């Protein structure tokens, strides 16, 4: 029995929350406000995972410089997720490849999955929030 199942059977219900990030970080507010929900969810002792797909992979790219657009660079927050026990970060392989990116361009350790693996992972979730 893993930790999640043990918690689920012994007391408060633990659900699997997945946050699907699909947008580039600064063109819209979705990426930032998604991160805010993730941090709150982490405080509820739920099973949290993050997925980055389509332009969402740009949220994790190293070396973001936002001074010229006058918006706060919130990408360091992804590095802080580990401190909240949010360690399951999954990135869509095709989304990376289509944008000429690879795992080494990203600022945090991730697991790269193909579409089929991603689909299987999504099917296991209780709550999926898509941003």
């Amino acid at each position, binding site marked *: 029995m893993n930790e999640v199942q043990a918690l689920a059977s012994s007391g408060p219900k633990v659900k699997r929350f997945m946050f699907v990030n699909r947008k580039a970080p600064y063109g819209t507010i979705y990426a930032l406000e998604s991160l805010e929900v993730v941090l709150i*969810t982490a405080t509820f002792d739920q099973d949290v995972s993050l997925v980055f797909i389509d332009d969402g992979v740009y949220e994790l790219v190293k070396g973001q410089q936002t001074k010229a657009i006058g918006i706060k660079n919130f990408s360091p927050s992804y590095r802080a997720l580990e401190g909240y026990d949010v360690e399951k970060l999954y990135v869509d392989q095709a989304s990376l490849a289509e944008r000429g990116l690879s795992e080494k361009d990203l600022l945090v350790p991730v697991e790269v999955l193909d579409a089929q693996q991603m689909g299987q992972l999504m099917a296991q979730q*209780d709550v999926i929030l898509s941003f």
Partner: protein
Amino acid sequence: MKFGLLVSEGPYTHQASDSAYQFAVAALARGHEIQRVFFYHDGVNNATRLTEPPQDDRHVVNRWSALAADHRVDLVVCVAAALRRGIKDEVLAPGFRISGLGQLVDSGIKADRLVTFGD
């Protein structure tokens, strides 16, 4: 079944609020429970009583208020998203309340299904 709803787009610009409302009405009519409606992103703009659409159009905000009054549906506006967009207690329409993102997580935990209305 117990449903939590998430509305993540503003009124009139996007169908999210209309679809969520129609879903809530249909679910209640079939005896389901709407545990909460949570308004996030530009969805917080559904909560201002300053909204005044033309008279021949639906009133998206008042419709939510009426639903809250008739069925005691909990309408919660995210405080951080609201403050960013100028939505405060003094402009809230009846039936809405401002609270934290924890209320959305709580919906995810307590509802049988959390249904998102947005892009």
